[in-house]
């Protein structure tokens, strides 16, 4: 494995550990947020976004270049109807199942095998999107 992928793996392990620590790998806990019974998810998203905002907007400015070379590019998407309609469709799926891509994949590591069906369905959904667009 090259250096880049080793770092991606270590970062991914932290990511997955944090998702499991925060309970986001449990669809029931995500659903309890969406039913407004337990608002903890805001702290997960907020905490992760704040740390990352510090890295992107402060640390990266000092560092100038990624350690392994290349350049820093903040993540800026173009706003279009696709972004918004996609977010609506994602929201419906999230509300039905309590799954989102990262938490579903991490959930496999907690022994939650039924979520394999959900992940398989996400692949089908991603496939259908490209089929419709071509």
């Amino acid at each position, binding site marked *: 494995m090259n250096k*880049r992928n080793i770092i991606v793996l270590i*970062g991914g*392990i*932290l*990511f*997955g*550990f*944090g*998702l499991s*620590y*925060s309970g986001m790998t449990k669809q029931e806990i995500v*659903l309890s947020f*969406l*039913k407004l019974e337990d608002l*903890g998810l805001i702290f997960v*998203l*907020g905490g*992760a*976004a*704040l*740390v*990352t*905002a510090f890295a992107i*907007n402060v640390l990266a400015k000092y*560092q100038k*270049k990624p350690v*392994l070379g290349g350049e820093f590019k903040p*993540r*800026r*998407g173009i*706003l279009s109807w*696709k972004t*918004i309609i*996609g*977010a609506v*469709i*994602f*929201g419906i*799926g*999230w*509300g*039905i*199942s*309590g799954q*989102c*891509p*990262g*938490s579903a*994949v991490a959930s496999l590591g907690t*022994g*939650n095998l*039924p979520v394999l*069906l*959900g992940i398989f*369905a*996400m692949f089908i*959904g*991603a496939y*259908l999107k490209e*089929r419709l667009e071509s």
Partner: protein
Amino acid sequence: MFPLGIEPYLLGGLIVGIGVSLIYLVTGLHATQSSFFTTTLSWFSKRKNFQKDSNIKQRGWRLTLATGLVIGAFIHTLTLSPTGFWTTSVQLWRLILGGLLVGFGTRLSSGCTSGHGISGLASLSKTSLYSVIVFMGVGIVTASIVNMLGVSP
């Protein structure tokens, strides 16, 4: 509002943020999730949309990231988890139907809870801010309707 307390949520979120930041500062990559589905499909589909250079270039590290997520959650479950290994009681039809919409919607929107929610908001992207407001609002309405129809958990 916080029956389980705030600590696991906040600390978990900070750990997620450290992982995402480490990857960004060392490699310049945004550790976002939903593209994983499209880039992984490039191993299975010959269609042009999947065989784009950007998909081929990213598929290796994106699979590595997904593997890391599984290992990280596995380590937590073995060590600090109060409940240990665990299986959801959400009905399979909901996992499948929800999964289809999540896969389609996140790709159409070019982002999910991590892409728009973490990396996008952290990059101060307005596109991501609007997306997060929309998927969170729609998610809350949908989950509440499902709950009102008597479907639980």
